[in-house]
């Protein structure tokens, strides 16, 4: 549908620019962008690239708040460019910059390597003593809906880095693990299928670990997925303290249910349709 002039407004984008090969260093470039109701910051950047300056660089992928690629500083606050509507955050001017607390590769592209290295260091996956059991495709681990609730909120993290950019501790302490990896640690610690908490405690309780958190709560304020990393970090602290004092009740990780018929089928549930593809070994 062709938009009428009345529905369009002009917003000046003040975009932070940086080219490592250039001699200008970091600078801010202004672009006038015609904006309509519902238009996102990401669409505004596309307009600039298509019509005003093809050299502008940023990172994006899904355009629907799922991939976490387009995290950037919009009017001084870390947000996803794809889910932020321009007219919700800007009057006549909009400042767009790269996420702070990261090295900048170019323009609006932060180097997230340090975040992912820290993420890997806390072993963000199910750890069990019996690896064969984990790797076997037979059977499934039993988990009740209540047990799922214990970590589900923390599993919504899309690793966009907004919490890391908002964290005041990260701003001065580059070695601090940060809210995203520590939330991932809590997500797996709270998972009844996991048995690796003691192993993760070595990282999360280290000098760069969760006790660096000041509980400023900015991570939770900026999280675009409502993950609440600040809550995860407090839960992580509590569990570390209980573990250190040997007060945490030891629980065995949930067991695996082998073969069909191990679980109870709820009444009035229709039978599953027949397999459309026959795997080898199936009759």
């Amino acid at each position: 549908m062709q938009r009428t002039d009345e529905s369009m407004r002009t917003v000046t984008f003040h975009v932070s620019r940086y080219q490592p090969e250039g001699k200008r260093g970091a600078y801010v470039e202004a672009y006038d962008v015609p904006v309509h109701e519902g238009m996102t910051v990401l669409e505004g950047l596309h307009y600039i690239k298509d019509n005003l300056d093809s050299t502008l660089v940023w990172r994006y992928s899904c355009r629907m708040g799922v991939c976490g690629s387009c995290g950037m500083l919009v009017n001084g606050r870390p947000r996803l460019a794809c889910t932020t509507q321009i007219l919700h955050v800007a009057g006549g001017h909009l400042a767009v910059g790269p996420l702070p607390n990261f090295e900048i590769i170019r323009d609006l592209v932060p180097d997230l390597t340090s975040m992912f290295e820290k993420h890997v260091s806390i072993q963000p996956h199910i750890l069990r003593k019996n690896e064969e059991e984990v790797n076997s495709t037979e059977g499934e681990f039993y988990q009740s809906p209540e047990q799922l609730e214990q970590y589900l909120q923390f599993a919504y993290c899309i690793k966009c880095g907004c919490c890391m950019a908002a964290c005041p501790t990260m701003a001065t302490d580059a070695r601090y693990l940060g809210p995203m990896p520590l939330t991932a640690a809590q997500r797996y610690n709270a998972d009844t299928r996991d048995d690796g908490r003691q192993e993760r405690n070595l990282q999360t309780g280290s000098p760069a670990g969760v006790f660096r958190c000041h509980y400023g709560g900015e991570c939770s304020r900026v999280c675009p997925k409502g993950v609440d990393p600040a809550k995860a970090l407090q839960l992580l602290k509590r569990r570390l303290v209980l573990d250190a004092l040997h007060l945490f009740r030891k629980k065995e990780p949930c067991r695996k249910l082998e073969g069909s018929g191990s679980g109870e089928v709820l009444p009035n549930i229709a039978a599953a349709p027949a397999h459309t593809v026959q795997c080898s070994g199936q009759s």
Partner: protein
Amino acid sequence: MNRTRLWILHMAAGVVLFLVLGMHMAIMHLGGVSHLFAPYAGTADSIQNSLFRDRMPFFTVSYVLLLGVALFHGLYGFRTILFELTLKRAAERAITVVLLVVGLGLFALGTWAAVAAHGMALAGVKG
């Protein structure tokens, strides 16, 4: 000692500090309580009232406790603030050693003063 245990001690020291400082404030500024521990005329920090409390081993222990928890809580907190500046490992080690030496030195000096005051107060009673 790992970071978790140090953090627990830091928090515990804060709680003890709150209680001991509360006791100090009550004795110094609340007349009803201070009369129990400051029976002589004048303010609660007069020399007679101070010597009266110094005679009691409970107060000598509480002075040493207050000194210990205040030093640990303050210096460990200061160290944490400094460490958030992403210093080099060698600088962090140097800070730890300096703060440990300063803390232990001040604790020894303060403990000696509290025990000496207790001794002098008892000698004054006998003498």
